[in-house]
C-alpha cells in the first residue's frame, strides 16, 4: 500500500491506495472533485498540477504532470487547485418569488449546466430566497463535453453519472439551506443533463437524426420531494432554454424579440407574433477560455476586462489578483481593443503574439479559435432572423442570457461580431435566466402551464447542413 498526500485549499488529506493507478481514477474513487477540461484526452494541458514523488513520467512537451495522464506508482504528493474558489455566477436577477399563503416548506430551483450547477432555495410561503449554492458539475471529471458524457452513459456508466449529479444536488441543498426539508424542486438543464439526471439511455441523443425520445415537462419523486423537469424543445434546445424564455418574459413583453444563451452551445430563441423559433449552434468552449493558449475559466486572477486608455491597454483581474490568464469576457474585450488599434485586421489576421501581462499573451491562433466560435453564434442568430423574415430593426429586445452572456461587454461583443451589430443597442443582460425561470415555476401555480405553452408554440430549426447558415457562418467569421 502507498500513500497519496493530497493538498487542496490549505487542507491536506492522505489517501491510501495500491499502485499503480491513474491519478484520475484514484481521485474519483476517493470522492475528490476535479476538472479535466478536454475530458482527459491529454490535449489541452489545462489539468497540470504540482506533484512530486513516485509518479509516471511528466508530459514530454511541457514537463508538467497532467492530472488526466499521470499514474501514481507509489508514495506521492499532489496539489490540486482550489476549485471551490471558482466564482461561479449564479446570477442575481430573482431574489424573491411571489408569496403564496397556501404553500408550505421550501422549494429549490436548480440549473444543471454541462459545466456548472446552480441552486437557489426559497421559502415557498414568503417567497424569500434563503440560500444558494453553485459548484462544478462533478461529471466534468468523466468528460468535459456533452457528447463525452453521452458516450460514457452508453458504455454502462449511466448510473454513476446519475448518482454524481444527485449527490451534488443533495450537497448543494444542504449548503444552501442546512436542515431545511425541500418539498419541491424544479430542475432546469439541457436535454442531455435531464436524461442523465433521470438515468435515461441517451443513445438517441448521440447521433443523427438526434430525435429525443424524452422531452420532459414531467414530474418525478425523490423521497419526500416533488420533482419537476421543465419541457425541452429538442435534443439541442433544452429545459434551460424554455425556463430562460419564461424568465425573460419576451413572449409577453414584446411583439418581436431574440434571446441567446451563450455557452459551449449557443441556444437561440426568436419570438414573433405568437410563434417561437428555437435553434442551437455549436460554438465550442473557446468563448469560455478553453482551447485558447492564454485562456482560463472565470477564476481569481483571470483577466475579465480589457480596455484602452488613450493608447495604453489596461486590464482588470477577478479578485484583483496577479493575472493567470484571460477568461471569456476579457478575450472579447481584448480582441475588440486590438481591432481598434489595428493590430488585428478585419480578416482576423494578427502579425504576432500580443503580450498583455506577464506570462499572458494572445496568439494568432487564439484569434482564429474565437472567430470560429463567435461566427457560430452570430450566424445562428442571423439564420433565425432570415428564416422568419425578420429584419433586425423589428427586434425590440435582445436578451443575453447565461453567466457569460451577462458578463460580456455589449460594446465589445458588437465590435467583434459575437452578435449581429444591429442588435447591440437593444441588448438586455438577464443573467442565469434558466435558474430564474425554474424559480418562477416553483411558486407560480400557472408556471408549468406557461412552460408547456412555450413548447407548444415553439419549433426547432436545425442549422446543420442549412445553406443560409453556412453562408452566414463564413461572413460572420470576419470582423468587418
Amino acid at each position, binding site marked *: 500500500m502507498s500513500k497519496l498526500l493530497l493538498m487542496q485549499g490549505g487542507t491536506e488529506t492522505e489517501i491510501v491506495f495500491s499502485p499503480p493507478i491513474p491519478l484520475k481514477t484514484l481521485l474519483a474513487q476517493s470522492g475528490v472533485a476535479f476538472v479535466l477540461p478536454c475530458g482527459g484526452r491529454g490535449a489541452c494541458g489545462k489539468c497540470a498540477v504540482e506533484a512530486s514523488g513516485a509518479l509516471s513520467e511528466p508530459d514530454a512537451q511541457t514537463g508538467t504532470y497532467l492530472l488526466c495522464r499521470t499514474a501514481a506508482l507509489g508514495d506521492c504528493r499532489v496539489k490540486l487547485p482550489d476549485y471551490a474558489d471558482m466564482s461561479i455566477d449564479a446570477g442575481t436577477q430573482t431574489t424573491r418569488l411571489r408569496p403564496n399563503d397556501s404553500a408550505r416548506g421550501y422549494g429549490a430551483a436548480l440549473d444543471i449546466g454541462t459545466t456548472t450547477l446552480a441552486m437557489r432555495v426559497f421559502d415557498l410561503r414568503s417567497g424569500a430566497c434563503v440560500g444558494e449554492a453553485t459548484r462544478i458539475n462533478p461529471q466534468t471529471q468523466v468528460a468535459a463535453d456533452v457528447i463525452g458524457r453521452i458516450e460514457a452513459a452508453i458504455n454502462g456508466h449511466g448510473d454513476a453519472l446519475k448518482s454524481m449529479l444527485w449527490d451534488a444536488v443533495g450537497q448543494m441543498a444542504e449548503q444552501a439551506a442546512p436542515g431545511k426539508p425541500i418539498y419541491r424542486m424544479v430542475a432546469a438543464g439541457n436535454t442531455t443533463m435531464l436524461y442523465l439526471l433521470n438515468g435515461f439511455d441517451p443513445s438517441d441523443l448521440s447521433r*443523427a437524426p438526434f430525435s429525443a425520445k424524452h422531452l420532459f415537462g414531467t414530474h418525478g419523486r425523490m423521497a419526500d420531494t416533488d420533482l419537476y423537469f421543465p419541457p425541452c424543445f429538442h435534443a439541442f434546445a433544452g429545459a434551460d432554454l424554455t425556463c430562460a424564455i419564461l424568465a425573460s418574459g419576451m413572449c409577453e413583453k414584446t411583439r418581436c424579440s431574440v434571446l441567446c444563451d451563450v455557452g459551449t452551445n449557443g441556444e437561440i430563441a426568436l419570438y414573433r407574433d405568437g410563434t417561437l423559433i428555437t435553434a442551437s449552434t455549436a460554438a465550442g468552449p473557446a468563448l469560455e477560455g478553453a482551447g485558447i493558449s492564454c485562456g482560463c475559466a472565470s477564476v481569481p486572477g483571470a483577466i475579465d476586462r480589457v480596455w484602452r486608455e488613450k493608447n495604453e491597454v489596461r486590464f482588470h483581474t477577478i479578485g484583483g489578483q496577479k493575472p493567470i490568464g484571460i477568461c471569456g469576457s476579457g478575450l472579447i474585450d481584448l480582441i475588440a481593443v486590438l481591432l481598434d488599434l489595428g493590430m488585428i485586421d478585419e*480578416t482576423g*489576421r494578427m502579425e504576432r503574439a500580443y503580450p498583455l501581462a506577464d506570462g499572458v499573451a494572445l496568439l494568432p491562433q487564439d484569434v482564429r479559435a474565437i472567430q470560429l466560435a463567435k461566427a457560430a453564434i452570430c450566424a445562428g442568430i442571423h439564420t433565425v432572423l432570415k428564416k422568419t423574415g425578420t429584419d433586425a430593426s423589428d427586434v425590440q429586445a435582445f436578451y443575453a442570457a447565461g453567466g457569460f452572456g451577462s458578463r460580456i461587454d455589449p460594446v465589445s461583443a458588437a465590435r467583434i461580431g459575437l452578435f449581429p451589430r444591429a442588435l447591440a443597442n437593444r441588448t438586455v443582460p438577464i443573467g442565469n435566466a434558466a435558474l430564474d425561470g425554474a424559480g418562477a415555476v416553483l411558486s407560480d401555480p400557472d408556471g408549468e402551464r406557461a412552460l408547456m405553452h412555450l413548447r407548444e408554440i415553439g419549433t426547432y430549426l436545425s442549422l446543420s447542413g442549412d445553406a443560409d447558415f453556412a453562408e452566414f457562418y463564413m*461572413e460572420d*467569421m*470576419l470582423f468587418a
Partner: protein
Amino acid sequence: MELKEISLQLEAGRAKEVKALVQQAIDEGFPADRILNEGLLAGMNAIGVRFRNNEVFVPEVLIAARAMKMGANVLKPLLTESGVQAAGRVCIGTVMGDLHDIGKNLVAMMMEGKGLEVIDIGTDVPPEQFIETAIEEDCQIICCSALLTTTMNVMGDVVRAAENAGIRDRVKIMVGGAPVTAAFAAQIGADAYTPDAASAAEQAAAFCREMKEKQAV
C-alpha cells in the same frame, strides 16, 4: 498576359476577374493545362500555404475557392477536349450519424485547389455509400469526416467495408475531424490522418501521385 495574373487575382478572391483572365488566356492561345496549373492551381496553392501560416482564414479560402470554380468552369471544356486528366479522384463525406459539414466542405475545396476531382456525398453517409461511390466514380481516395466521438467509430466501418468489397488495395482512406487523432487512424487501419484542410489536400495529392507512379511501373 502572364498566367501569374490569374493566380494573383484568385488569391485576392476576385471571381469575375479570374473568369475574364482565364478566357483571355484561352484566347491568347495558352494551353489549358498550363492555365490550370500556373494560373488556378498556383493561386489555390498560395492560399493553402498562407492558410497554414495563419495569414488567412476559412473565409478567404472559401472566397478563393469560389473564384477558382468560376475560372475552372470556363476551362473545363478545353481540358476535356485536350484530354487533360484530373490529378486524382476523391469521394468525401461526413460519416453516418454526424451532420457536421463545415470542416468537410473546407477539405473538399482545398482538394479541388490541388487539381483533384472531388465527389462530395454530403453528411450522415453510411459506410456502404462511401464504397459504392468510390467504385462507381473510380476514386483513388475516400475521405471521412466526423466531429463526434460517438460517430468517429463509423470510420472503422468504412475501412472494413472497403476490405469486404475487395477495393482496399486500390483506395486510400483518409480520416479527419476534431476528435480524430493519428493514433486513432492507425488503430482503425486508415491510411492517413491530417489535422487541417491544407495538409489533407497535400496528403491526398501525394497519395494520387504515388498511385499513378505505381500504375506506371
